[in-house]
């Protein structure tokens, strides 16, 4: 049982400007589930990618059964018996299960012809082992997410793979599907396969894991046997000392601003992305929304701003029930969303700084026919001053700015619509420390003016220090509500990961 099949020794990975991994050791035991945990940015995915051959370590060695090996692509990693199932599914929906399993390593009849019969019989065998009772000629597009995950497993395991890396395999699965997956994992263990298991869900880890390795800030923090530890140990090791929020933000909040009742967003493959969520927001309040990936945080904000036409539920803003359903109407009602992905949804790449900033409020500067360039210019100048955006000229391309200043332009665009409720989805993603501080100074100032803010962030530190109150979502449901005084890293992590 104690046999080491893969050892990573002294792995360091440097990217320009940052060290993602600093002298990390990692052991993979045969026939066991080797769990890897850490916060966002702790280095889990970098280590995973190095083990899977997606990235190469800057320094450090990988030993296979005690012998040093080198590989620099997932293909070569497979030849050493290391397979990976990524968090995102990587299947081609318009091909069959068998065709997906053998993609890029098809079984050939001769130089030109694929041997479909052999592929399908081998695929059928693999599917039987994984208890997926489907013909291998089934199109992947007709499978549920859980079934697709099993096809990914079959694909990763095919051949002589005896080390399987699974990066958050359960994040998209239902409870029933997780059960099936765990049965498969137990079966794989029994056959001697070593599993590297990355997850944020502590109860799962305790249920299925054998060994645990904790990373924090790119460094190895601790290793243990799962049977010797509990959830509190994991949280403590992941986050360091349990710290209370610094200066408590205790200012008087205003009256009721927003009330959301029974908000639901159906998922087209069944179930709900946002499931019966109700909450209230007061004037001048910052409400944090915390949850794991896929918990429905972004969708919740999109429902409020009208970008999810299928959403149902009641929204009451300043005592008035919102009847509108389109984004343009919701903006007039007083909602405004700063999206998660600045490049994809926040900025128009072909526009100047000024054009980006006024995009959502053009009607304010438009007379009978045309946009008043004087009025538009004034609004832009005011906002640039107010948000202290560092620019050369407002007619320069938006790309002339740093990420932080681009984000401020997006904030300016939203503020120019005169929102009552500002929705911020990961407002500090991809911006530097100084710009983060600026961002939160702006947020605090806005709340002084009576604006309500709903903020999504995956950064625990931000969740502990910025909001007055935090709601925790788990698989679309509200699973916790904490006042600032009750907040700790452990409470947030537990509420977001428990069933």
């Amino acid at each position, binding site marked *: 049982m104690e046999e080491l099949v893969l050892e990573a020794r002294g792995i360091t990975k440097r990217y320009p400007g940052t060290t993602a991994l600093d002298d990390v050791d990692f052991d993979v035991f045969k026939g066991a589930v080797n769990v890897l945990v850490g916060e966002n940015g702790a280095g889990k995915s970098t280590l995973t990618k190095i083990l899977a051959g997606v990235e190469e370590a800057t320094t450090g060695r990988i030993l296979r059964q005690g012998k040093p090996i080198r590989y620099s692509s997932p293909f070569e990693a497979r030849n050493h018996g290391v397979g990976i199932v990524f968090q995102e599914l990587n299947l081609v929906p318009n091909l069959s299960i068998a065709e997906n399993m053998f993609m890029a390593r098809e079984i050939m009849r001769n130089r030109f012809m694929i041997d479909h019969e052999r592929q399908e019989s081998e695929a059928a065998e693999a599917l039987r082992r994984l208890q997926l009772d489907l013909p291998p000629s089934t199109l992947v597009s007709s499978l549920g997410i859980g079934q697709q995950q099993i096809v990914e497993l079959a694909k990763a395991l095919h051949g002589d793979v005896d080390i399987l890396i699974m990066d958050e395999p359960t994040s998209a699965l239902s409870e029933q599907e997780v059960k099936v997956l765990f049965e498969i994992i137990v079966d794989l263990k029994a056959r001697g396969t070593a599993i590297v298991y990355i997850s944020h869900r502590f109860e799962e880890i305790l249920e299925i894991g054998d060994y645990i390795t904790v990373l924090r800030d790119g460094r190895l923090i601790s290793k243990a046997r799962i049977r010797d530890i509990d959830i509190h140990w994991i949280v403590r090791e992941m986050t360091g000392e349990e710290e209370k929020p610094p200066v408590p933000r205790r200012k008087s909040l205003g009256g009721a601003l927003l009330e959301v009742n029974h908000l639901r967003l159906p998922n087209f493959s069944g179930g709900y992305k946002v499931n019966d969520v109700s909450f209230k927001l007061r004037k001048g309040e910052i409400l944090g929304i915390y949850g794991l990936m896929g918990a429905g945080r972004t969708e919740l904000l999109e429902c409020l701003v009208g970008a999810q036409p299928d959403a149902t539920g009641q929204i009451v803003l300043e005592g008035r029930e919102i009847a509108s359903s389109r*984004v343009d109407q*919701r903006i007039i009602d007083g909602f405004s969303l700063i*999206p998660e992905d600045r490049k*994809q*949804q926040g900025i128009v790449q*072909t526009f100047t700084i000024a054009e980006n900033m006024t995009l959502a409020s053009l009607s304010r500067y438009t007379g009978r026919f045309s946009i008043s360039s004087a009025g538009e210019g004034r609004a832009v100048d005011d906002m640039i001053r107010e948000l202290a955006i560092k620019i050369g000229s407002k007619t320069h391309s938006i790309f002339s700015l740093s990420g932080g200043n681009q984000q401020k332009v997006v904030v300016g665009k939203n503020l120019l619509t005169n929102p009552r409720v500002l929705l911020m989805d990961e407002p500090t993603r991809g911006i530097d420390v100084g710009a983060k501080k600026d961002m939160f100074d702006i947020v605090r100032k806005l709340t002084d003016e009576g604006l309500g803010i709903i903020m999504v962030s995956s950064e625990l530190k931000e969740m502990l220090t910025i909001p007055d109150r935090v709601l925790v979502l788990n698989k679309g449901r509200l699973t916790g509500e904490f006042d600032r005084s009750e907040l700790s890293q452990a409470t947030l992590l537990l509420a977001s990961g428990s069933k």
Partner: protein
Amino acid sequence: MARFFALRESGILLGLIGLCLILALARPAFANSYNISIVVRQTSFVGMVALGQTLVLLTGGIDLSVGFIGGLAGILTSLAMTGLSMPPAAAVAAGLGAGAFFGVLNGLMISRVKVNPFITTLASGEIFAGSILVITGGYPVLNLPASFQFLGQGTLAGVPMPAVFFAVCGLLLAYALGNTAFGRNIYAIGGNRAAARLAGIRVERATTVVYLLSGFLAAFGGILFTSRMSSGQPTTGANWVMPCITAAIIGGTSLSGGEGSVLGTVLGALFMGVLANGIVHMDISPYWERIIIGLVVVLAVVIDVLRSRKRSRS
């Protein structure tokens, strides 16, 4: 000077001037006023269509049905005058209305049903082309009233009427794109559809309006050409798609949307007109025309790719 070269239109403007100079030097007949008025008139028909195509390309779409919309509108206008004995003004209005209606059908299919613009307009273009043949049986519609022929054949202060309409439509469109919220929204939709939607722009509605305008302008081009020919020809517009897209592209309109201008398209259309005219003047076999135009387009899109690559690096 550096600012001039930073403009998208500078390349096509220099190209146009250069081409005109070479032709004027090599063949003095090119530069006489009669020939220039021919070039300008010929350019205006497809130029009108290219204006609408530019709007569509700016939103990141494409309209392959414009030529047949133009042809069908020309036939319908002709038949309204000959078959229904409508006065020319009413017949022209009906033809323009029909073009706008066809455009709306394209727009609804693309924005509401979410069918890809290429497929939608490829298919609807076939329907319009077939309709022309069904309605006319392949024969031209003759005996159009003399007053109608003024539109395509007359002049205003020495300027051919089609060029007058082309200029008026171009100016109106350039103003709308540069100075109205509608114009800004079109650029935003082509630049980043998701960001435009979250900014509260009604993307579906704007898209439909853009295809409406494309259909309207295509019909305008078709009706002017019908007037020019003094008859409703079933072949009108059959080969307009390629030159109108070409005019927009060599004028600096990006095929991925969000970038381009009316001025660029007008210059691009003139360049194409001068090129076709020059081929005749230089006694080059007209069989070469399409090869030369094809090469110009390849050159233009390569320049576009290089330009956007440079931008994404910076």
